[in-house]
């Protein structure tokens, strides 16, 4: 089975609004006019309502009620609005349970959002990598989206075979490839490519378990580190969820030491709690 076959034959592709995909395509473009964002978001009444609800939640704590999209864009700025809309849009797709992976409802969304906030932080703290923090956020948010499709073809037999491989200290992604012929990274990248998302995001999702580090670390390296940090900070859903092979080059390329990594885990734990508040927001 190839990633392309899986994407084209899948029966339950994640439902995403046209507005969310158009906004994802705006990532990485420097010239984004306020009215352009507002027009796209206003076309989707569900996203508009959810966004205004989020803006009026204690999470943002604005003194005045936010009543319109124009006001929301002015108050939050382009990056935050984009992140929030993408989070709300992909949230419903990522919040389903994936029994084939041992993932309960909302767990993948929590992990994806924690990874997203971590990837944004890494991009912001590493200007030398020349990575747009907002794009890094989206890479983190979408890095495991391939699991939504791959779990549809998991059977009790293939699950057992994957877990048997993991017990031999093979990573879960490599075990997927050995048993199914493809892993969730490749499937996710193929899906995002079919939605015409920017190539940098497709690269990051495709390589988030084998990051590209040379000549400079690409978004896949940021996503890889963010994914590992989210697992270490307690957002680690699924069977044998620590069976992730850490790329041996990533520590050197991003200047990591055990102490620095542990300090980062503290910050990611704080993100994880913000995510929990966001997910339980009334």
């Amino acid at each position, binding site marked *: 089975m190839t990633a392309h076959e899986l994407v084209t034959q899948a029966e339950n592709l994640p439902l995403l609004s046209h507005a969310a995909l158009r906004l994802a395509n705006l990532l990485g473009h420097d010239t984004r006019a306020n009215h352009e964002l507002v027009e796209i978001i206003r076309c989707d009444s569900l996203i508009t309502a959810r966004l205004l609800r989020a803006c009026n939640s204690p999470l943002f704590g604005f003194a005045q009620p936010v009543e319109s999209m124009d006001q929301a864009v002015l108050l939050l700025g382009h990056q935050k609005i984009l992140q929030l809309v993408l989070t709300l849009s992909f949230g419903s797709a990522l919040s389903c349970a994936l029994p084939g992976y*041992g*993932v309960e409802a909302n767990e993948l969304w929590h992990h994806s959002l924690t990874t997203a906030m971590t990837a944004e932080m890494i991009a912001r703290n590493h200007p030398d990598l020349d990575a747009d923090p907002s794009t890094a956020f989206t890479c983190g948010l979408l890095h495991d989206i391939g699991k939504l499709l791959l779990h549809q073809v998991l059977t009790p037999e293939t699950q057992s075979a994957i*877990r048997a491989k*993991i017990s031999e*200290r093979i*990573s879960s992604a490599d075990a997927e490839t050995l048993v199914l012929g493809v892993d969730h990274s490749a499937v996710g990248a193929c899906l995002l490519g079919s939605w015409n998302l920017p190539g940098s995001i497709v690269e990051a999702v495709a390589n988030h378990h084998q990051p590209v580090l040379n000549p400079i670390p690409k978004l896949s390296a940021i996503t890889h580190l963010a994914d*590992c940090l989210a*697992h*270490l*900070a*307690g*957002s*680690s*859903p*699924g*069977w*044998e*969820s*620590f*069976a*992730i*092979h*850490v790329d*041996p080059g990533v*520590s050197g390329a991003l200047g*990591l*030491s*055990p*102490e620095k*990594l*542990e*300090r980062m*885990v*503290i910050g990611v*734990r704080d993100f994880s709690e913000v995510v929990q508040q966001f997910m339980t927001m009334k």
Partner: protein
Amino acid sequence: MPPIGKWDFPVPRKAIVIGVADMVVCNDPAAELVTYSLGSCLAIAVYDSVKKVGGLLHVMLPDSTIDPDRAQLAPYMFVDTGVPRLFHAVYSLGGDRNRVVIKVVGGAQLLDPQGIFNIGERNYRSLTGLLARHDHKIHAQDIGGFASRTVRMDLATGIISIKSPATGAYFL
């Protein structure tokens, strides 16, 4: 119809949830302590079966010297600042250092041959070093592996039950 009190229903236990970087010590034998999402973190359980007092600590990192300010605010985040508080709290409810049984769960590991990401192992080493310095030994443990675990302590018996997405419950 059996008389009142003879129904064979399990009594629902009062679950007290311990978050990440948190601790609870309790002497209510009708309750259980539970902590979720135990990956590379450690759950350290201390129990005195005579006084029926038990404590559960969920620590995240081995050494508070990396962030002393955070250790002031959240001492249960670190092995070196959390574990002494756990023992003192158990003793303050009547636990005896010669009777307490110590059980440890967690410390899952990513596959990192360089060891930089092996926080689970560093947590465990920090704990065993600290316990050895105070002449304590671990009575039972379930350490390492790749799974995230949920841990429960029954305060009537001190029995620890462990569950992960990959397994049913097993006991320590």
